[in-house]
């Protein structure tokens, strides 16, 4: 059984606090790891950099990925994840303010599993987070860990 870890990629501290609060409020016994850009996401997933020594087979149940981030942005991160054997099948949910069709199309083309627009209204945001968490942590069955061939 995989862990109940959610990896949250979010560069804005206010948004991070609100999202973590919403997730904790809606879901019991979850572990939330926060990354602030794509580089930190890849470090966590591949157990490199500050995460060296972590068991890299222990992948999160889902990655909630913001699109607009410094250094490696959301789409570049998604591309990197899909191009890496180890993380190729990781469920990725785009969680963004953007309602742009081009972002939605690019996200799905690059292999996003879901695209969620963050509602302005916090109550709606709580509701969306609850549904997201319940689905990806409780309903969805993730693919078995894919061993890197290299």
């Amino acid at each position, binding site marked *: 059984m995989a862990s109940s870890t959610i990896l949250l990629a979010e560069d804005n501290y*206010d948004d991070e606090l609100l999202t973590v609060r919403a997730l904790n409020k809606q879901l019991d016994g979850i572990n939330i790891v926060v990354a602030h850009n794509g580089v930190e996401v890849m470090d966590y997933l591949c157990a490199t950099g500050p995460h060296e020594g972590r068991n890299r087979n222990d992948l999160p149940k889902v990655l909630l990925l913001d699109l607009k981030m410094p250094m490696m942005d959301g789409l570049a991160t998604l591309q990197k994840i899909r191009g890496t054997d180890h993380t190729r099948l990781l469920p990725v949910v785009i969680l963004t303010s*953007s*309602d742009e069709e081009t*972002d939605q199309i690019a996200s799905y083309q690059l292999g996003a599993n879901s695209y969620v627009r963050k*509602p302005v209204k*916090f109550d709606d*945001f709580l509701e969306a987070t609850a549904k997201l968490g319940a689905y990806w942590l409780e309903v969805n069955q993730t693919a078995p860990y894919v061993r890197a061939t290299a």
Partner: protein
Amino acid sequence: MIGIATNTAAVDVVWRNLMGAVPDAVIVSDASGQIVYVNTAVTRFFGYQPTDLLGQPVEILVPRTVRGQHKSHRAAYHSEPRRRFMGFGSDLRAVRADGSEFPVAISLGYTTSPSGNLVIAIVQDLSDLRERDRSIENLTQRMVRDTKLEEVNKELEAFSFSVSHDLRAPLRVVDGFSQVLKEDYFDKLDDYGRDCINRIRTAAQRMGQLIDDLLNLSRITRSDMVTTDVDLSAMTREIVEMMMAAYPDQKVELAIEEGMVAHGDARLLRIALENLLSNAWKFSSGQPTARIEIGRSKSTRGETYFVRDNGAGFDMAYADKLFGAFQRMHNAQAFPGTGIGLATVQRIINRHSGRVWATSEINKGATFYFTLFQEAGNGIQYNPTG
């Protein structure tokens, strides 16, 4: 096999037929500049009969403004005759019998005869070519304009993305943390404090709605148009069903004209109709029985569609403000809304080269009219942004 005529009469026939078949005008003049021979094409080119031209100075075919010049050029040519082609690059013009001018290319050759040197001018009419040049130029200009338009559209897109992301994010934080404050410090706040928080949240949510509306409005301007025949009657019935489900308590008498089929973009027309019908619903909600009518009137210029209600109406003095973004005719307590609906309708109708307007009387209702593709007459549109 090449036939060679051997007797003079046969040579004459071949010569005449040959010259008659040449598509360009052939004009032969002598050393003094008098025309001694023309082929039949001169009639088509210049509007003269061949016999009108024989014996005339060749300058009769040259525009008045350059006749003097032509005489000296002609004298110079006779002193040193050679084959010459003049035309495409230079702006040569010839004049017709009726005085009108046209662009030409001229090839010159010379020969000798018992009566002296002869100059043979072969004249090509470049009117079609110039016309094509102009079309190409127009097309080029249009392409340049479209490219600029595309750039502006791209900028708009970048701007709307920035609005979407950059303005919504802080609003979410305002709303989110005031909710946190309410949840975690509820006991420590008095009624006034709680009221303040509610006001902050209401305002943040309203601003979120305004931003979303603005983004939707810009999307309507940017989206590609796909025009087909659209059954407006069927579309209206579908929207009406939706409205009835959304407002089950409102009593509405409906009249929908059947068979209204228009040419346009179905997705955009649906948005326009939804806005007009939801306005009709909203502003007639105060009536014991709302009456909403959707129909058309025909005129020689085409069809005018209308949506009529018996609701609150508006003051015609402000009719010019009706279709502006964020313009409202009523206060938000009486009729909620962001004031973007009619601005959206107008943009959609504009994209269909149509017109939208309204008439009303306060407390008696309003009628909104619109036309589609009427101004152009033939319905053919040049629509660079799709």
